[in-house]
């Protein structure tokens, strides 16, 4: 029997999972480091009654942390994929509702300093969600050698650099608009 056509090489899957873990864990830690600020950011979305905001903020940040840690270990990866998709889905829904209301001047609360909500942010979350879904596919059964571990590290580091660049460009966007206006 040949290899399953829907299976993906473990090098790709492990590189992507490592990237997502770092993204989610760093995002969660930035929020947990200053929960007061994150609570106000959640409050700005105007989607929840005041009484629920602190609980939601804690729940969101801890879920993000749990999803990030869970993706690191094969045993917990299945649950972590669903948790990560839920976290990204909730964040994107909040952004989309506020964009449709026309309140696009609020900060996203992503933990990346003053980044405003935008369609670009939803697209970024869409790409992250697609990568999370990729982690749920089956691994091709093969033994990894030294060069494979090197490739996993390469994929993870380059994806992280791309992610940080994308965030920076998204954060630059409103400033560029102000310069043009």
């Amino acid at each position, binding site marked *: 029997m040949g290899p399953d056509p829907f299976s993906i090489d473990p090098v790709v899957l492990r590189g992507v999972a490592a990237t997502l873990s770092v993204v989610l864990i760093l995002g969660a830690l930035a929020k947990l480091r*200053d929960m*007061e*600020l*994150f609570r*106000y*950011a959640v*409050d*700005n979305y105007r989607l929840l009654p*005041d009484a629920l905001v602190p609980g939601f903020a804690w729940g969101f940040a801890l879920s993000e942390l749990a999803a990030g840690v869970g993706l690191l270990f094969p045993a917990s990866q299945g649950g972590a994929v669903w948790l990560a998709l839920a976290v990204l889905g909730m964040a994107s829904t909040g952004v989309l509702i506020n964009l449709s209301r026309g*309140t696009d*001047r*609020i*900060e996203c*609360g992503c933990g990346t300093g*003053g980044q405003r909500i935008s369609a670009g942010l939803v697209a970024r979350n869409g790409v992250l969600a697609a990568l999370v879904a990729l982690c749920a596919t089956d691994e091709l059964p093969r033994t990894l050698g030294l*060069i494979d571990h*090197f*490739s996993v590290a*390469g994929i993870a*580091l*380059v994806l992280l*650099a*791309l992610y*940080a*660049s994308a965030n*920076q*460009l998204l*954060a*630059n966007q409103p*400033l*560029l608009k*102000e*310069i043009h206006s």
Partner: protein
Amino acid sequence: MSDPLMISVVALWVLVLALGVCVLALSRQIGILYERVAPMGALMMDNGPKVGEPAPVVEVADWNGRVLTVGGPMAKSTLVFFLSPTCPVCKKLLPIIRSVQAREGRWLNVVLASDGDRTEHAEFHAKHRLGEFTYVLSQPLGMTYRIAKLPYCVLLDAGGTVRAKGLVNSREQVESLLSAYEHGVASVQEHIDRRVIDAVPERG
């Protein structure tokens, strides 16, 4: 590791990674150019009335409709705190501004300044119990001081001269603006610069 293909793959990974880091650094530098703000301290922007110059006199209406003059001779010094209901850092700093007003009330009036629709501010004003502050909604005031980023503080002395101003993100930066005023320096950045200059031993 002598396989030429493997060496090529390793070399390419290293180069791709280096390029990734370059792209990140360039996008960050573009961001800094856009912001035109140095990365530390409550930094002074080059725009608007300069520190040491008399502040332009701007007439504004406070929350209750009373006419108020910002600038010109006043009974006390004035700290104008520019904020917005959608800025999380501004909300975080409100308790600090409140404590500054309570502590320094003898010589300092705190004015919270923003612009926009009053209905949008009504909920924010009520929720954060801002009745104890002078709260003004005035676009000309923000334009006068060329406020580009929030939260931003401007400190005017009783004579109506700008004594310190800067972007503030933490309690330390609010305090540093007040201490910059007390020590007679324009901004925290200038204070740091002076210390650096003082620390450099003279050659001779």
